[in-house]
């Protein structure tokens, strides 16, 4: 299922397709965390965490900003909120696929 990312949503989906990144994203959904603390409790090295954070950041799922002496990481609501529209759109598309299938089905009855 290899696909070229096209939209920011593709990116978000691919970013969350990885269990470690999902775990990181989950942690950040609870509260913002300093980058150095993110690896705590996860079976993953700090360098690997940096790599994962980069992917999440590129997908606009998280934001990292400097706060005093540390980098703080939090959910990027702009990206997450953008996804809301996809949900609505999805149902439009799924239900219209259903409509087509039903009307086509009738012709063959």
């Amino acid at each position, binding site marked *: *299922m290899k*696909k070229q990312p*096209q*939209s920011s*949503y*593709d990116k*978000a*989906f691919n970013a*969350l397709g990885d269990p470690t990144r*999902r775990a990181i*994203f*989950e942690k950040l*959904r609870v509260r913002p965390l300093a980058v150095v603390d993110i690896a705590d409790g996860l079976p993953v090295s700090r360098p690997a965490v940096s790599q994962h954070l980069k992917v999440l950041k590129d997908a606009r799922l998280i934001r990292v900003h400097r706060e005093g002496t540390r980098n703080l990481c939090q*959910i990027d*609501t702009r990206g*997450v*909120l953008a*996804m*809301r529209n*996809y*949900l*609505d*759109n*999805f*149902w*439009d*598309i*799924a*239900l*219209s*696929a*259903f*409509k*087509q*299938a*039903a*009307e086509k*089905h*009738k012709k063959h*009855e």
Partner: protein
Amino acid sequence: MNNVKIDSIRKELLVEVSQETAFKVFTEKMDLWWPRTHHIGKSPMTELVLESKPRGRWYSRHEDGSEQDVGYVLTWDPYGLLVLAWQINGNFQFDPGLITEVEVFFIAEAPEVTRIKFEHKNMERLGGGKAVESMDEGWGKILDLYKNQTK
């Protein structure tokens, strides 16, 4: 956090078939119209199954022979009402403790016209106030896969 608080999504459409046909295609033929790529299994999906009965299972079948639960039938009331439990959380995981309801009314407007009133409810249950956001991850994923499929 500027959370959007919506605990349900509503849709309505007219389908030019009888109420019975609409209900049957939605339920028995779900595999016909559901995006092939929407599943949370480990290998490609071969079939999406909705068992047409009260408490019937709702699951996907996969190339490796595995099955992945989506939820189950909460209300089976042919041909007017179907309520499904959707039990996949925002992290693409099946959670048997989670029930969000997908409620579909099939209203006969004419012999060959059926109004579909669709509502996906209880999103607030999906994840402590971030419910809708996590739903979006799941459904957004489907949409994109769907788009890629139909190109």
